[in-house]
């Protein structure tokens, strides 16, 4: 027989809250501990790689080919401090961002329009697949002939690496829309535009977002390819110029800065994605609070 106080509604509620809090804490510490463990292992793995690099350089491999972590970090420090890195990164970032936005907008617009035409996506499919499959590096010289050597060819190359994946993902997302929901909306008197904005696009959002996330590195690749071919500013130019002088440490410093940059970008996108997907249930079945 439980004490009378426990049967009191208020007391029961308190007890329930306590239990819930304990459960919640167990759940949180568990995942936090896991996360900390994973992070430690990630750092250890990276440290081991750097150590191996440092050990191999000058013993197994000529430093001319591989440089070594310390020289690379020294160069990286120098170009960060004297502003060289930012000067180049800024330019690459502009090319990449413009190309990315252009590619995403074109990919989305094409997918929405073509999906609205009967058999549209099937008709253009071989052509889209073909264009998607062409190595964009092969197009680079042509792009330069068409668009000159300034900003535009880099933007176009970056966009070309984004457009098709966003297009295919959006088409798949639109095709996956529940037809019953579509009927419900039409009976409600929704205009085609209302169906698009209230049902089709929100429903395709996870597909579109996947496309947008996996193409971020693509836009960077496009910008860098463009810079390799002809440029006087940008991380691609920094790397190409250093490479022509056999300055391996500087080449690696450039690559490393790109790597860090891409990781940061990815983290930012994941964050945004989690925010936008708040309506979805968590995979563990718990509800987000």
């Amino acid at each position, binding site marked *: 027989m439980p004490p009378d106080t426990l049967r009191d509604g208020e007391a029961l509620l308190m007890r329930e809250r306590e239990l819930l809090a304990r459960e919640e804490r167990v759940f949180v510490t568990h995942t936090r501990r896991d996360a900390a463990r994973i992070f430690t292992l990630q750092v250890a793995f990276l440290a081991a790689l750097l150590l191996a690099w440092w050990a191999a350089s000058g013993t197994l491999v000529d430093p001319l080919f591989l440089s070594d972590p310390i020289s690379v970090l020294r160069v990286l420090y120098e170009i960060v401090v004297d502003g060289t890195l930012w000067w180049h990164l800024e330019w690459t970032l502009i090319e990449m961002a413009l190309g990315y936005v252009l590619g995403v907008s074109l990919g989305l617009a094409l997918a929405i329009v073509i999906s609205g035409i009967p058999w549209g996506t099937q008709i253009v499919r071989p052509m889209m697949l073909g264009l998607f499959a062409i190595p964009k590096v092969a197009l680079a010289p042509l792009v330069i002939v068409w668009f000159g050597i300034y900003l535009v060819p880099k933007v176009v190359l970056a966009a070309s690496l984004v457009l098709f994946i966003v297009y295919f993902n959006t088409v798949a997302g639109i095709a996956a829309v*529940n037809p*019953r*929901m579509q*009927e*419900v*909306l*039409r*009976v*409600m*008197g*929704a*205009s085609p535009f*209302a169906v698009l904005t*209230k*049902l089709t696009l*929100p*429903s395709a*959002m996870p597909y579109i977002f996947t496309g947008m996330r996996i193409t971020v590195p693509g836009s960077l690749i496009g910008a860098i390819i463009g810079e390799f071919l002809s440029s006087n500013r940008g991380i691609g130019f920094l790397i190409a110029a250093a490479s022509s002088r056999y300055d391996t440490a500087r080449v690696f410093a450039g690559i490393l800065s790109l790597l860090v940059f891409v990781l940061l970008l990815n983290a930012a996108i994941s964050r945004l994605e989690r925010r936008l997907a708040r*309506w*979805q*249930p968590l995979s563990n079945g718990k*509800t987000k609070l």
Partner: protein
Amino acid sequence: MTADDIVLQARNVYKVFIARGGRARTALRNVELTVRRGEFMCLIGPSGCGKSTVLNMFAGLVTPSDGEILHSGRVITDVNTRVGYVTQDDNLLPWRTAIANVELALECKGMPRAERRERALDYLARVGLKGQEELYPHELSGGMRKRVSIVRTLVDESVDVILMDEPFGPLDAQTRLILQDELLRLWHGTGRTIIFVTHDIVEAIALSDRIAIFTSVPGAIKDIREVTLPRPRDVFHIHETPGFSDIYDGIWNDLREEILKTRSADAA
């Protein structure tokens, strides 16, 4: 009965589907059905008899192969936006909260924000969902989702005909009864017409003014029975109401033959 009393009409309706291999499969033959304004009508019949197809025709989502469907005397040729449609699955938009789902139809009709919010809150409160308005569909139970799905159709008072396709099918027996009761309360006295597909005889009797019984496939109307039980009805004790068993037996006699036919066709 004058023409004004008739809201929906199926005239000599046939539906032929093209089955795999190009063979024609007749789903409906010579369906004649008249729905009176303001009545609660159930369509009942063996599974696969085409009763949902008739409902889809009233919604303008399926076109008859022959014959015509009329709404207030006008032939339906396109999606019929003058009806509300409650589908078998709740089909709520998962990225919208309960209240945002309820507001959907009003949004499509261009109702101002404040007004539609007020209306949606009122309807959600009427099915006991006060305080749950901001929950997402995945946070609601099956019964609650079904309530939201019904309310999102009823909330649009510009439509006076509601089509319901076995809405309580997947629910457990108790929730089913409670929802039947809630539906009758929401409907009673509104003058709206409800056409409700079910294969549960007790449910049909508890809800309807008239029950249209379908033959087995290819579906036709076998019989139409009046349910004269007084309203408001107590769905929880409907089987104890005097006159219930006569109606039940009558419907069951009609249905039994058809179900047996379906079974022998399946066995063949």
